[in-house]
């Protein structure tokens, strides 16, 4: 055991954790919006809109995240037309490519989580709202969304943790996130176990924090206090 290496690599890995957290928070934020959008499309009665939303979530849930990142980072740059538009400013940066891929991926999973949450809302609750003369819009924002949030919290908590682990793939497109830096230290020192313990410890700590935040929120939003 090389404790010196563990101590000297800790600040470097901690610095890289900031990149991981930035990637995670950005992709969760955009992913939640995208997921909500597609969940609403999934509940639409129009079969084409419905199928479109289903196709989106099916494709992104059925393929590995690595393929998705590679298509966006290596693949999209190949289209000549894209290079001339303003999108190229975003797509040439690995950072934004990673965020786009993570957003699309977590959006697909989130849309499934939210869809099932919306579907488990008892029709009686919506009918009660209607009979009180509340407009459809307000029923949706003030009744359906809060209930759906509570229903989907446990599953969404898992999704956050999966996404946190997913951000490690950013290291495959040259980003120096926690895993990227860990790999760099391993390949220069050939001490995989020590680095794994430190980097893995940081990941576990983040998992632990996320897990407890979700647990707290679940308690806060549950019926039976």
């Amino acid at each position, binding site marked *: 055991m090389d404790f010196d290496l563990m101590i000297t690599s800790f600040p470097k890995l901690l610095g890289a954790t900031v990149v991981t957290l930035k990637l995670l928070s950005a992709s969760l934020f955009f992913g939640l919006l995208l997921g909500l959008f597609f969940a609403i499309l999934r509940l639409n009665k129009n079969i084409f809109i419905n199928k479109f939303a289903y196709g989106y979530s099916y494709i992104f849930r059925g393929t590995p995240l690595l393929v998705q990142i*590679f298509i966006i980072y290596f693949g999209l740059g190949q289209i000549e037309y894209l290079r001339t538009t303003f999108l190229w400013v975003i797509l040439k940066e690995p950072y934004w490519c990673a965020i786009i891929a993570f957003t699309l991926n977590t959006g697909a999973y989130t849309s499934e989580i939210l869809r099932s949450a919306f579907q488990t809302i008892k029709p009686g609750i919506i009918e009660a709202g209607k009979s009180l003369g509340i407009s459809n819009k307000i029923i949706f924002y003030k009744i359906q969304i809060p209930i759906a949030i509570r229903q989907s919290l446990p599953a969404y908590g898992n999704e956050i943790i999966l996404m946190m682990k997913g951000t*490690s793939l950013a290291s495959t497109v040259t980003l120096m996130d926690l895993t990227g830096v860990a790999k760099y230290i391993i390949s220069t020192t050939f001490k995989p176990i020590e680095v794994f313990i430190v980097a893995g410890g940081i990941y576990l700590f983040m998992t632990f924090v996320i897990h407890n935040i979700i647990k707290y929120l679940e308690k806060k939003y549950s019926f039976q206090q």
Partner: protein
Amino acid sequence: MELLAFGKTGWGDELFYATLMTIAVSITAMLVGFFFALIFTPLKLSKYKSLNLVGNFYTTVIRGVPELLVIYLFFFGGSGAIMYVASIFGYYEYIEINAFITGSMAIGIISGAYSTEVFRGAIQSIDKGQFEAAKVLGINKFGQFYKIILPQMLRLAIPNLSNVWQITLKDTSLISVTGLVEIMRQSYIAAGSTRDPLFFYSFAAVLYLMLTYMSMKLINKLEVRYSRGY
């Protein structure tokens, strides 16, 4: 389309073999995972606190750490660990482990953590009366587990195991970083030499979709089979 031709002119046969490799790694990893689950599920369900701790440590660490990090640990640390063990027995030559073995071990350990959780959940949801009834009928421990508990457990576990299979299948794409030529690695090579990454990565995505779709169909059949009588 000529990019996908079989033979020397296209990448069709290479990608076909790469797909077979992905399937082989996934199945091996899943079986390695079952092996780990077989060890750790009893530990998690044990009466003894210390054994519980070992089981929980395994599932918590593996499920809380990115797959890629675990793969790097095995990739860079695997041959070192084997050489260390070999040196105890007096063998000091360099040993290189095959990428297939490293990859399927790494993915297998990850898949095992998920399988352990699935088995634990399935066993816990079997009615206690079933264990007691088996005991009362004088069935030995072996028979209790294989004839009474296992068939009931499988029925409950199959839907969740199908999720574990999907996760395992998708995780195998990460082994490409170690140089094992599976779908992802082959697409990387093809994309590099033809300068057509968009096509080859999209094709890789199609191959993965096909694999997940076909395995879903197969698992659904299994599910029907094990749910007979319910």
